[in-house]
């Protein structure tokens, strides 16, 4: 194992060297850093050119210049000694990277996590209901998302999700036409999802359309988009739904103790919501983390106390329910601060530029909302596009697994379909996904170029593309290096994870 790892690391290093040389050559033919001076009429033109030549070592031919760059880059192994050259503005590339990496991470983390969770969930359900109306609908929608150019999505989101939505917030009433469209759409979607006989579809359609119309009308009349909130009633309703859902997934409804444990944590969550009001008002980031951990711990304790002969399942179900209810409470608290935030943002809360409002003063809730309203659209854009591939991959993988002999054996043993799906099929279906996920993360770190460009977020992609456009070689090389290292290491992680997850695959030393 150790020798395998060493060999892989050595090879990765060679790959990095080769690729960085190639990229350096390509960068050197992709622009002339002296271009802006060649055409200018400035009196000190010669001096400026000389200064830039000295800054970027342009008097040395590119292949030799690469080794100067490399000797600086090698020093990055020692912390603090890193030297990736300077941008034409004179700013060290390492400093630019240090500010770009966090904002890219902030942007892609939520998108990756949500894409993985939602994508896998949808993929599994479509695989379980292969060739149903739901499957066909989802297949079509994923293909559609897959075929959307990311800049198109981003520009559309910016126009409709931000500019028009902000205008809508000025008069948050929903007209009759919009109401009818929403009702019809939700009726059609639910009829497609639930499926069944035509009669059943018709009933589904009517119920879903009526429900959607009622909800929309309520949102419109109560000006919910300006003064949102869940309120204790909705928290209880959602909480009970979560408790039942989690129990069905993790333990099965016949496991009554797990269900009771989950329901009790919902009650605890609602009580805590009132008890902790003063604490929440003064909250900071770490208070929230602590409270989240406390929620999980409370769930575990309740599960343990009520667990009976099968404590593990009750504990898991209760802890997950507790965590999700805590998230609901958190959401509600954020919503309470929303009107104040809208006020601070001059009535146009959803941001289209940057990752935060400059000079915004406010407590944890206000700054949190600010971050949310700036990141929600770029994250959605990234999410929509990566969602499609995860759905397809997990569907294919699940279909493959469900056809395996061991699934048939599990059924033949008399296991419930829930156990067959969650225990035997789902986990094995995840194995090939590990590779895809690891590879995607490596790619996405540098790959949000278009989204960052449309929403003017100063991340890695922006650094890269601006370097190219300004014919500024060092930032391009710097971002390339970070992306290449992350891609190579996630590739390695993917291989190791695969052999760890699937015992049939052994790494050969």
């Amino acid at each position, binding site marked *: 194992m150790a020798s395998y790892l060493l060999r892989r690391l050595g090879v990765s290093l060679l790959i990095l060297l080769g690729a960085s040389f190639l990229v350096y050559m390509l960068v050197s033919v992709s622009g002339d850093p002296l271009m802006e001076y060649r055409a200018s009429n400035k009196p000190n033109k010669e001096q400026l050119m000389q200064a830039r030549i000295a800054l970027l070592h342009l008097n040395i031919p590119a292949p030799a210049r690469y080794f100067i760059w490399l000797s600086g880059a090698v020093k990055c192994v020692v912390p603090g000694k890193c030297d990736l050259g300077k941008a034409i503005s004179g700013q060290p590339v390492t400093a630019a990277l240090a500010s770009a990496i966090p904002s890219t991470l902030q942007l892609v983390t939520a998108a990756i996590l949500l894409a993985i969770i939602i994508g896998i969930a949808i993929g599994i359900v479509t695989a379980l209901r292969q*060739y149903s109306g739901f499957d066909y609908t989802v297949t079509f929608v994923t293909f559609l998302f897959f*075929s*959307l*150019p990311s*800049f198109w999505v981003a520009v559309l989101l910016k*126009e409709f999700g931000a500019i028009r939505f902000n205008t809508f917030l000025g008069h948050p009433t929903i007209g009759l036409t919009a109401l009818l469209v929403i009702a019809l759409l939700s009726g059609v979607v639910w009829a497609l999802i639930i499926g069944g006989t035509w009669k059943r579809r018709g009933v589904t359609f009517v119920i879903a359309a009526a429900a959607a119309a009622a909800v929309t009308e309520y949102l419109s009349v109560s000006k919910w988009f300006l003064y949102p909130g869940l309120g204790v009633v909705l928290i209880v309703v959602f909480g009970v739904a979560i408790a039942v859902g989690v129990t069905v997934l993790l333990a099965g409804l016949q496991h009554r103790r797990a269900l009771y444990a989950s329901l009790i944590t919902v009650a605890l969550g609602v009580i805590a919501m009132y008890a902790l009001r003063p604490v929440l008002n003064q909250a900071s980031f770490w208070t929230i983390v602590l409270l989240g951990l406390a929620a999980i711990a409370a769930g575990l304790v309740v599960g343990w106390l009520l667990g009976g002969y099968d404590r593990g399942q009750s504990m898991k179900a209760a802890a997950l329910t507790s965590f999700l209810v805590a998230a609901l409470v958190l959401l509600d608290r954020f919503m309470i601060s929303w009107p104040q935030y809208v006020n601070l943002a001059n009535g146009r809360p959803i941001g289209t530029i940057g990752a935060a409002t400059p000079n915004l003063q406010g407590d944890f809730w206000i700054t949190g909302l600010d971050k949310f309203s700036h990141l929600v659209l770029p994250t959605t854009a990234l999410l929509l596009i990566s969602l499609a591939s995860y759905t397809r991959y997990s569907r294919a993988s699940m*279909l493959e697994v469900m056809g395996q002999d061991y699934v048939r054996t599990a059924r033949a043993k008399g296991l419930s*379909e829930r156990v067959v799906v969650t225990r035997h099929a789902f986990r094995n279906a995840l194995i090939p996904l590990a590779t895809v996920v690891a590879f995607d993360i490596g790619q996405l770190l540098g790959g949000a170029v278009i989204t960052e460009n449309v929403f003017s977020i100063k991340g890695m992609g922006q650094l890269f593309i601006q370097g190219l456009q300004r014919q500024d070689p060092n930032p391009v090389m710097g971002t390339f290096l970070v992306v290449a290292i992350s891609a190579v290491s996630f590739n390695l992680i993917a291989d190791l994870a695969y052999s760890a997850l699937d015992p049939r695959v052994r790494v050969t030393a």
Partner: protein
Amino acid sequence: MSSQQPDRLTDTLDSREVPEDVKGLSQGALVRKRFLGHTGAIVSLVLLALVVILAITSVGVGFHGWWKYNWRQTPDIVNGGHPTLKLFPPSLGDHPFGQDTVGRDYFAMTMRGAQISLLVTVMVGVISGFVGVVIGALSGFFRGWLESVLMRFTDIVIIIPLLLLGGVVAYNSKANVFVLGGLLGLTAWTGMARLVRGDFLSLREREFVDAARLAGASNGRIIFKHILPNAIGVITVNTTLLMSSAILLETSLSYLGMGVRPPDTSLGRLISDNQAAFSTRPWLFWWPGLFIVIICLCINFVGDGLRDAFDPRQKKLVLKRVKEPDHDPLLEATQASALPGMPLSEIVAPPTAAGGSTTTIDLDEGGR
């Protein structure tokens, strides 16, 4: 694939009633039959063909098309350049897609853009398909040092950012659309090479290859006559996927101002040029986007149809769901619990053996 053959055979036998001579369907015939049965793929193929024909004949390539304007003429702006396309009653009008800010006919421009985008797409598909197959086949078949060298080279090419090539093209003024397509094609082959290599690695160990070798076949003959035809499924499916990602790549590059350069135009270029006009002339934004989506969606569906046609294994699984009420209640209950759409009241508690004790296998079993 072979497991499907008997079914297909009996199907054809049944349909003909009296078989004159019983012939097995060839691999090609099987694939064609399955592909033609895939409605989505066929509809997409026809639609794609229509788009291609429309793009080529309307404004012409080198010759004069049937549309009255071309993409360079600047007729007078009519009605603020609004699209004249009407669905009820259907009529094209003078400028069905509207006009841009200087009055050029947007239908002609969109068609020209579609031509260029399709050209780049096809170039990327052909070039990277070819390079990927050659590299994958060589490394998968010969293995040894050749494989290590080629695969390390693939690893290097994988991490070269494609945007950089756009930068190279944008900087060199002599570089035109063909250079862009060629460069992208020369770097987009990595996925194909890996997949083809994988296929070759498993195929070269099969008995029919040993048999061919014993019969005295040369390496070239084994590759072209025995292995390549068996890998054709992977190759075709991946070429379509390559092409669908190529059109997105080209449009994204053009959007960033690094792909197709004026005087050429492309669908991405049109969107990029006109995005500032979104609030005043939204049609300048919608039409090219619509064509990108149509082309890409069609290619993806064709690829899906091809995948199903070449690899019918996925088709075989039909989850047995019992719907009739007179069936075993236990079976019903267990299925209901796994299917989120079903009402929970239908669930009859199964004996603990099914739901309880066996489920204590813990999460860390799989999450190690």
